[in-house]
């Protein structure tokens, strides 16, 4: 079962890296980028009978190791076999 974890800094926390990237974009002429935050993406292949079971295990992994909940929020998304490429992907 493929699962995708998105880890982001909590809303109130200053994202220095995001701000730096935004500045760099502006310097390259991308003034239309108005806000930007950098997070982590973890793709996991996990042995589980059901998607629900997989998500529960990954949730445990997040709490125990993958995310630091003082700083970060996380979202777990199931990626079904047939949907490996997200529907709206451009490339």
């Amino acid at each position: 079962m493929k699962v995708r974890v998105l880890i982001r800094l909590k809303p109130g926390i200053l994202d220095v890296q995001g701000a730096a990237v935004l500045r760099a974009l502006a310097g390259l002429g991308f003034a239309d980028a108005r806000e930007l935050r950098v997070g982590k993406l973890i793709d996991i292949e996990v042995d589980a009978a059901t998607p629900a079971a997989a998500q529960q295990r990954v949730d445990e992994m997040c709490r125990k190791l993958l995310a630091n909940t003082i700083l970060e929020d996380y979202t777990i998304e199931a990626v079904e076999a047939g949907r490996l490429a997200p529907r709206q992907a451009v490339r």
Partner: protein
Amino acid sequence: MRFGVVVFPGTWSDCDFHYVISEVIRQPVKYVWHRDRNLSDLDCVILPGGFSYGDYLRAGAVAGKSPVVEALLEFVANGGYVLGSCNGFQILCEAGLLPGVLMRNECLQYRCQSTNLLVENVETPFTRGLRAGQVLTMPISHGEGKYYADPPTLAALKARHGIVFRYATADGQVVKAANPNGSVENIAGVVNETGTVLGLMPHPERAAETAMGGTDGLLLLQSLLGTLVEDGTFLKR
């Protein structure tokens, strides 16, 4: 006092601490492997600097879950002392033994430089030989040393005088210009509620001999041992 220096895969200040303890303050010391859980023959456990597990996920995250760190809970409950420097501080925070967390430096670069530390709390075993307001000089060497705690945690930390060191100028001014990594309120080191677990980003083991540019780091260990002599008498402030 019997010291143990913990070695995780990726630790590199282990030998430096070992050297200072055995050759400079001349105390019994041994290495403790990260899988060990038996700390019963030790008085003080040191978590040294380095990149445990490469710090590939978050600094200290993986080591924070290791057997030896789990064993620290009981060790601390039994009155043992723990000193975490650099990666050791990050590990203590990740393990929940100290509040807060260490984030990527605000400049987004690694920093290796000398820093001045204003001593704020002299009621801990590691600082009892120092004067409040004293300024120590110690180097830092890290990429993720920006201390962060949410406002309630920070308020509680301050209320119990948990902040031990802040980055400051040579004459003790706590100002932004003296802050090498963007730490909240220039925090460089904090202590737990009982004062027995100290975490700091600077490297006391690199400031333990005149030849290495200073001996202020030694003051922490000498405080712990009760051997610090100032004006001829220990603990005379």
